[in-house]
């Protein structure tokens, strides 16, 4: 019997139809790239039993099990269920034992974050999992990534939504011994927002990017992190064939709840304005904004969003980047 496969459906089911006839690959989603090592054993078992024994660690922190015969798709989907359950991925009820419910909204990726990294300002994989829970399954093409600090190891500025951890440094002058470690640290590793006046530290609040370097350098806990966690939200970065661009700051000193709201609101915006001609209903959100205007985007994105007084919002955002599609 010849292979008879609904490839459109298979792709939405997180399968890749490979260049080799009859062979596909199964993509496993791991939000935040953080999982129980037991998952590795499960992935290994599928790869060895159904695939060619190899796995690709995807750029978005999933596993892609290679070399699976497409006729085994259904059986492999069954094998995926314990992985989906253990990782905690949302699934429509009718999709139990049938693999992933969608693939358009990509895995929410993250740098290693404050589970491990001394620079990180929050638990990136935890936030990635929270966002994944809020936005997945969905077939619209959204890329979201979380990074612990302004070093941006997760390259979040290449994403539709990039979340960069910040802290509002808290200074207790009575603990400061004027050693200058924070001033030197901010100067050499960050933006040079600190200076000493009268043996105490002055922070240029306009310059400070909330990286937290001063906090890690201070030997006496004169600098500590704010109890509240802050984030920078960068928007509409992307790679690609037309107009690759870096994401730009939309909100600075923002909070987690509002960021989640804005991402969800943007789904409504895309539903409304996505081009009817978009191939496989995939159109980069940035291009949609280019077409309909930033004001329209803002109107949708900020619905029911009440920003904290300290949050800075950039009311107009313009992107540059390379225009491969626009050569004269």
């Amino acid at each position: 019997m010849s292979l008879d496969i609904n490839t459109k459906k298979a792709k939405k089911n997180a399968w890749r139809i490979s260049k080799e006839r009859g062979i596909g690959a199964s993509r496993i989603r791991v939000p935040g790239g953080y999982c129980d090592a037991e998952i590795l054993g499960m992935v290994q078992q599928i790869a060895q039993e159904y695939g060619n024994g190899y796995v690709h660690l995807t750029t978005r922190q999933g596993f892609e099990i290679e070399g699976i015969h497409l006729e085994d798709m259904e059986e492999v989907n069954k094998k995926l269920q314990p992985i989906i359950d253990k990782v905690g991925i949302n699934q429509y009820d009718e999709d139990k034992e049938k693999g992933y419910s969608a693939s358009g909204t990509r895995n929410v990726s993250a740098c290693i974050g404050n589970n491990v990294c001394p620079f990180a300002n929050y638990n990136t994989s935890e936030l990635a999992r929270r966002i994944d829970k809020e936005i997945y399954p969905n077939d619209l093409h959204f890329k979201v990534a979380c990074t612990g600090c302004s070093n941006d190891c997760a390259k979040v500025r290449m994403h539709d939504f990039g979340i960069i951890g910040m802290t509002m440094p808290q200074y207790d002058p009575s603990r400061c011994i004027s050693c200058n470690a924070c001033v030197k640290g901010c100067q050499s590793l960050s933006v040079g927002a600190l200076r000493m006046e009268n043996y105490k530290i002055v922070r240029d609040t306009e310059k400070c990017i909330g990286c937290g370097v001063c906090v890690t350098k201070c030997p006496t806990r004169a600098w500590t992190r704010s109890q509240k966690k802050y984030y920078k939200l960068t928007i509409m970065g992307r790679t690609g064939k037309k107009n690759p661009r870096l994401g730009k700051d939309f909100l600075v000193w923002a909070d987690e709840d509002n960021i989640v709201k804005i991402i969800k609101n943007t789904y409504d915006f895309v539903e409304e304005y996505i081009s009817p001609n978009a191939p496989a209903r995939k159109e980069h959100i940035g291009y949609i904004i280019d077409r309909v205007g930033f004001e329209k985007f803002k109107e949708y994105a900020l619905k029911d969003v009440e920003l904290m007084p300290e949050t800075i919002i950039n009311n107009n955002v313009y992107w540059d980047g390379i225009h491969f599609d626009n050569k004269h």
Partner: protein
Amino acid sequence: MGYKFSKDEMAKIFAKLAQDYDVFAPVVKKGDGTFSDVDVVRYDQVTSLDEIEFNKKSDYSFKEALLPINETLFYFTEDETTVPKGPEKKRLIFLRSCDIHAVKRLDQIYLDNKFEDFYYKRTREMVRFVLMGCPNTCENGFCASMGTNETNQYDLYIKVNGDNAFVDVKNDEFTETFKNGALEDVKPDFVKENKVKVTLPKNITKETMSSELFKEYGSRCINCGRCNFVCPTCTCFSMQDIFYKDNEKVGERRRVWASCQVDGYTEIAGGHGFRNDNSDRMRFKVMHKIHDFEQRFGYQMCVGCGRCDDVCPEYISYSTLINKLAKECE
């Protein structure tokens, strides 16, 4: 005299004590550690028993409750100076055995070192010490090696154990407060042995000064000063004269903790520094702790609390360095 109370009774007595005394004790400061979502245990004023962290050794010692990190010595105008008031209330400081031994070192430097420091003295006279026991050794401490694991130099001993609290009163000032408790033989918990054992070098000579160990450890050190700032026995300070910005004829003089590991410590007029090289700073610190002080006062400065090893971001283990030095000096 030893007494037993229920924890609730003890909490009430404590609340009363906190009215008569400013109580300083180790508390967990949520998220205030060096890294994100990491706590730090350090001293702060408390008003209830629950706030006190009895189990984990404080990351920063009790020292700041007795010897402020920043202390204004006087305010000046063009022709007058004003000395700020000292503490008006008596103070209770909760601390462990090694730390009580450290108080002796602080007293030595500030009260019995050819002069008496006015500021230290006026605070010190107001302080009473409450011993917290150590049922188990901490990670890096070596109090047993330094002979600081036990003490009887406390005013009170307080132990909370499940629903009960135990008190040993040594200072009559507190007899009235605790007299209603059930009499009980209360012996403080003292550690007999630590995981870390330290042998101090004997026969320190001029050659010891040029040991390669100081070069090796010095090259690893980043001069952050944490080892000194957490140490209960470091007493160095520097002076700062502040001229207020709005009116530079008015200001204040402060003394502020200093560290022999941090840049600027030996800097003099003209910009010369005497210990610019890290290995010199490392040698100086170690020698001060285990040799120089002892030469002058007849007993060791270091009390073996292990905080310097706990805190060093470069994993420099001072106790390991000493042990290696002892081997070299054999």
